[in-house]
């Protein structure tokens, strides 16, 4: 009796389990590949249309292949100065924000002090405020103080929204950090500054580099906050915005592709390096 009951029950359960196992094994993989295709579709469009030879001013329809846009990447008035401004802002903003953010991260992880909770909230708030509100409130400040909009207002804004990202990135690394190494250095006679320079800095170096790159990437891509605080200055995203209204030239795709390839190469090198190290460790 019991064996019959079991036999009656198991096939149904088995088919269900087998069906689910099949779903998990194959459909999930197929779905994931489709997902990546979906993610990369617009990127493919950007890259392909950077080689387009548009007939009119609209770069929407494929007309023919040309190297021209790449050879004359700055063949559109204003694009060159926009890229240079974006690079300058991203460079300065990422350095200053990472320095300020690293200091905050060190204080938060290393020291007990009054006002920790408030500090954590102050770090978290800019991350959870919509960009349009960040941009609008800074604009209001500058308007009320009669500040002239331009390079400095953009830089101030970018440092502001990068700090929190830098803190979060460096903090993540500091939490898993062995303090005994620093204590050993101090026991051996190094003062706090020497210890920081010779022990702490090399250990959190990768996190600082990661914070720098993240801030650089966020800064160079920012449109909303910059749009509110740029005055008559034009960064690359602002250039794209302006160009989009009258039909973006293929040069925009060229620069977009170039930024993509450079960033991807840097990240890929990092990932492959980590994979090799993980392989060597195991």
């Amino acid at each position, binding site marked *: 009796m019991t064996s019959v009951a079991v036999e009656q029950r198991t096939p149904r359960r088995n088919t269900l389990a087998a069906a689910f196992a099949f779903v998990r094994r194959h459909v999930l993989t197929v779905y994931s590949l489709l997902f990546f295709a979906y993610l990369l579709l617009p990127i493919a469009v950007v890259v392909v249309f950077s080689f387009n030879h548009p007939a009119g001013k609209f770069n929407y329809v494929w007309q023919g292949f040309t190297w021209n846009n790449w050879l004359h990447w700055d063949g559109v008035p204003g694009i060159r100065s926009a890229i240079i401004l974006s690079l300058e802002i991203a460079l300065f903003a990422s350095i200053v924000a990472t320095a300020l953010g690293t200091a905050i991260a060190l204080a938060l992880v290393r020291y007990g002090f009054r006002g920790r909770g408030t500090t954590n909230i102050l770090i978290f708030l800019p991350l959870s405020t919509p960009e349009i509100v960040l941009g609008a*409130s800074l604009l209001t400040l500058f308007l009320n103080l009669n500040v002239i909009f331009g390079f400095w207002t953009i830089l101030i804004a970018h440092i502001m929204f990068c700090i929190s990202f830098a803190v979060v990135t460096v903090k993540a690394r500091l939490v898993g950090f062995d303090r005994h190494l620093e204590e050993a250095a101090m026991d051996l006679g190094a003062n706090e500054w020497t210890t920081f320079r010779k022990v702490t800095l090399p250990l959190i170096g990768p996190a600082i580099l990661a914070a720098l790159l993240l801030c650089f990437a966020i800064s160079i891509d920012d449109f909303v906050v910059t749009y509110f605080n740029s005055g008559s200055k034009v960064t690359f995203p602002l250039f794209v915005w302006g160009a989009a209204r009258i039909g973006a030239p293929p040069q925009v795709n060229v620069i977009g592709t170039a930024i993509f390839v450079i960033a991807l190469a840097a990240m890929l090198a990092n990932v492959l390096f980590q994979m090799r190290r993980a392989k060597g460790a195991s």
Partner: protein
Amino acid sequence: MGFFHRHRGLTPYLLLAPGILWLAVFFLVPLGFLAYQSLQSGNIDFGYAFTWSWGNYWTAIRDYRDQFIRSLEYAGIATVLALAISYPVAYWIAFRGGRWKNLLLLGIVAPFFVTYLIRTLAWQTILSDDSLVVRTLQNLHLLGANGRLLNTSVAVVAGITYNFLPFMALPLYVSLEQIDGRLIEAAEDLYASKFHAFLRVTLPLSLPGVVAGTLLTFIPAAGDFINAQLLGSPNNHMIGNVIQSKFLELTDYPAAASMSFILMAGILVAVAIYARIVGTEQLTGTAV
């Protein structure tokens, strides 16, 4: 000994001071100015005066109710879509990625190295009237013969969903990756079906990622105006478009400032409601 040793208690404050000061002066103080501006009356030519004019808020809600609701609606739909689309992939990478995990994660982040605006312009091309996508949908009769995608709410929501996907996928991956595989094995032994094990163990354990991803997607999405501008028609404009034009084109600062606060209040209410739902669900999930 050095300065730091004599003033050990001061060190954390010295480290904090520059960054915190920066955030105070260029984040908190501006919010104060925005609040101040939102209660002013007047116009750009004759100047603005602070008059406790709460009427700005009521006027904004009365005149732009549609845009406010649309912002929360579009952001909500996009968040749910992003969650549904990226959960299986985050799961796949976390449990089947093996040593390719980092490379696959890079694949998720990679598209976002292309400038936000250029990415969105690419969608403009993909969804434009004579594009392959639109013609295929027309041939399948999923779209009328003259049906279009560009300048519709579908395009705007699709754009928002795409543009904020990594904010959803990465937290999901992190929480799924942290799950101890032995818990799932134990659950499979006890519940016998993998599906139930997923429902009772994996899903509840990944909830922190779902919550983080939802907030990281919803909040910026509700304030977005780029997708509505580039992929939608004026009928699809969100409150971000109104704030942007009031500030930068119409120079109606008090109205724009009050709208910014209403937007933030709307987001806070939506997040609070969500926290309530998820909070209770999470409780029952662990109680069962």
